[in-house]
């Protein structure tokens, strides 16, 4: 995949393995992270959704936002592409402040995938994927090639492209939604519970596919989930939130080893219990 609008140096750094350590060193070296948030606060009708959030996300990093329902993780994600503008504090993307004026053009550099896919029901899969490229005046051949490459990448079943969203399965919808998000080859992918509405088997399937896709793309990723194992599966860094604040932003293993407060342990443990119970039964 081509990564456009990016200084040449960055790609090489990201492609080095293992990524986790690279990213951390990268964070210290670079003067400009992809996203940097300072004191971001947003409330809705008196309820504070996110409270004084400061966070930096480096190029090529995969960050997972997690926490109990209503902790503000989705709101935080939506502040990245300006769907939500903070009451106070600033969100910067590539050094520039995300505002009402700047967000429209910035969004074309950020793919966005939501729980049910958010596909337009009046358009076929192909039309959904191609919509933005057509709007930007890309040539028909270029679009066809790009859609072809993306359906290979996402392993979309042949024939799905001509279907309307109502005619697709949940998994197919998410694949198409991902293709749509990737169509303009964005620098960043924002995913809000992309697997949230799928049943467990399809979910596991798509999870490994996503992992493979993300690894091959080497893009900056921010993913929201409430599932701890999913977070561990994808994340370079997990941002655990509670009541609008960040409790701990760290490598996954450190949540277990060095929890910032008892809530972290509680949260991590809560999701391990099912497996533990089963193991107990086995023994």
């Amino acid at each position: 995949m081509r990564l456009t609008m990016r200084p040449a140096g960055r790609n090489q750094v990201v492609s080095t393995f293992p990524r986790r350590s690279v990213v951390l060193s990268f964070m210290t070296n670079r003067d400009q992270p992809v996203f940097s948030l300072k004191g971001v606060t947003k409330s809705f009708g008196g309820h504070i959704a996110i409270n004084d959030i400061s966070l930096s996300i480096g190029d090529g990093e995969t960050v997972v936002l997690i926490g109990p329902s209503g902790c503000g993780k989705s709101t935080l994600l939506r502040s990245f592409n300006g769907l939500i503008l903070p009451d106070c504090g600033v969100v910067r993307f590539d050094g520039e402040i995300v505002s009402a004026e700047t967000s429209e053009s910035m969004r074309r550099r950020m793919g966005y995938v939501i729980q049910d896919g958010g596909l337009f029901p009046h358009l076929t899969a192909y039309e959904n994927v191609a919509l933005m490229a057509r709007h930007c005046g890309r040539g028909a051949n270029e679009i066809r090639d790009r859609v072809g490459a993306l359906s290979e990448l996402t392993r979309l079943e042949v024939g799905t492209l001509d279907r309307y969203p109502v005619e697709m399965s949940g998994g197919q919808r998410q694949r198409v939604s991902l293709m749509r998000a990737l169509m303009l080859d964005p620098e960043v992918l924002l995913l809000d519970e992309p697997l949230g509405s799928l049943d467990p088997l399809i979910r596991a399937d798509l999870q490994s596919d996503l992992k493979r896709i993300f690894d091959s793309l080497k893009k900056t990723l921010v993913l929201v989930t409430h599932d701890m194992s999913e977070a561990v599966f994808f994340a370079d860094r997990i941002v655990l939130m509670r009541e609008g604040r960040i409790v701990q932003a760290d490598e996954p293993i450190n949540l277990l080893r060095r929890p910032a407060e008892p809530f972290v342990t509680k949260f991590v443990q809560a999701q391990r219990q099912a497996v533990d119970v089963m193991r107990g039964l086995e023994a």
Partner: protein
Amino acid sequence: MRLTRTILPCVAVLLVFVAVACGEDRADVRIGSKSFTESVILGEIATHLVRDTGLSVEHRREIVGTRILWQALLAGQLDAYPEYTGTLIQEILAGQSIENDDALSEALAEVGIVMVGPLGFNNTYAMGMLKDNARRLNVMSVSDLRKHPDLSFGFSNEFMARGDGWPGLSKTYGLTPANVRGLNHDLAYRSIVDGTLDVIDIYTTDAEIEEYGLAMLEDDLHYFPRYDAVFLVRDDIEPTALNALRKLSGSISQSRMVAMNARVKLHGEPETVVGAEFVTEELGVETEIEVLTLGQRLMHTTLDHLTLVGISLGAAILIAIPLGVVSAMKPGPGQVIIGACGIVQTIPSLALLVILMKPVRWAGADGFAAPAIVALFLYSLLPIVRNTATGITNVSATLRESATALGLGAGARMKLVELPLASPMILAGIKTSAVINVGFATLGALIGAGGYGQPIMTGIRLDDYRLILEGAVPAALLALMVQGLFELAERLLVPRGLRIRVAH
């Protein structure tokens, strides 16, 4: 996108069709008539006379309301129509206190109108009683009614209200009957025959006077003014036409008019036949009567009706969808827009038609159809505006946000996502408007715009159910057809993804 791509050509074709329909050559002479039999007969007589000179003539029949005819004459939309001196003096030129026919001629000449006539008969009001009843009670004149305050009086609603009607009459004669009521004129005849009423107001040339054996009471105090029939003619009419019409002066006697009214009203002969016979017998003018077949009549009324519906609905679609979009995007102005469209709906149709006649003429629009088209246009707005606004507002927040997150601006979002998603709702609104429009368009006949309302009005006037059905049935069929047409359009216009239902 698909919506605009498909609707725009449709509307364009519609407008072209309508422009062709409107562009029909205008007749050299246009004659009008009021919405009662005598006036229509006089209109036909004039039509035959003028046609005999070789000019092309158009007869705009049965226009409701003296004011409308008068204004149309002044504006040059009509060249001539039959009127009554009493109406001119008491009503149209009431402010000028005109004493006699000469003064009337002068007053008319000042506004460019030539008065031809009097034609020879006086169609004034009179009090009527059953002959037997009058003889038994020894009532010969209106004054005699004072001796019988217990009689039941029933008057047409107009007579009850007019200053020169019942209020003046009761004052002049000192009549204080215990029982007076207002009712429909045709109904009054039935009531007097079955004995519910004793005294009614009649027009002195009514065909029913003879038919039902009524006595006209003598107006011994000369309360009722003369209502001598005349023709009002614009002074810029073709001179040959004016000369032809002048032949009518003094040519129609009271009894002849009553007889002609009776033939149409009671024996169902067409006005044009009765008029032609008169012209041949009394004025020696040979005429060709063109009695249209049912098919020809239907073609005329259908074309008129489609013109009214086509232009008004086409314009409403073009204007209402953008208004709906604005209403959805800006709730403040939106409330004002939808409120205004709603208020228009509450204006009674005849009132709206009359209100519109002046500004429409002032805007230079010709033809009787224009006010009707504007009224239909206004009535058609609300369903489309409201459905467009609702359709857009109902687009789910998730989809709206998906479009935003892709980087689409507000305009592109509207065009590519919100309007297509709202298209089923918008089409439903257009369908509602179209069906209502087809029905409302029958009212265009009230002001001479033609259409399916024309036979309905004639049918009501002549109590002829076949004629009423000749308008009502095609109107109903057209409404059904329009409904079907839009259901078809739905298949073409609404994206397939919004129509398919998948069993889950």
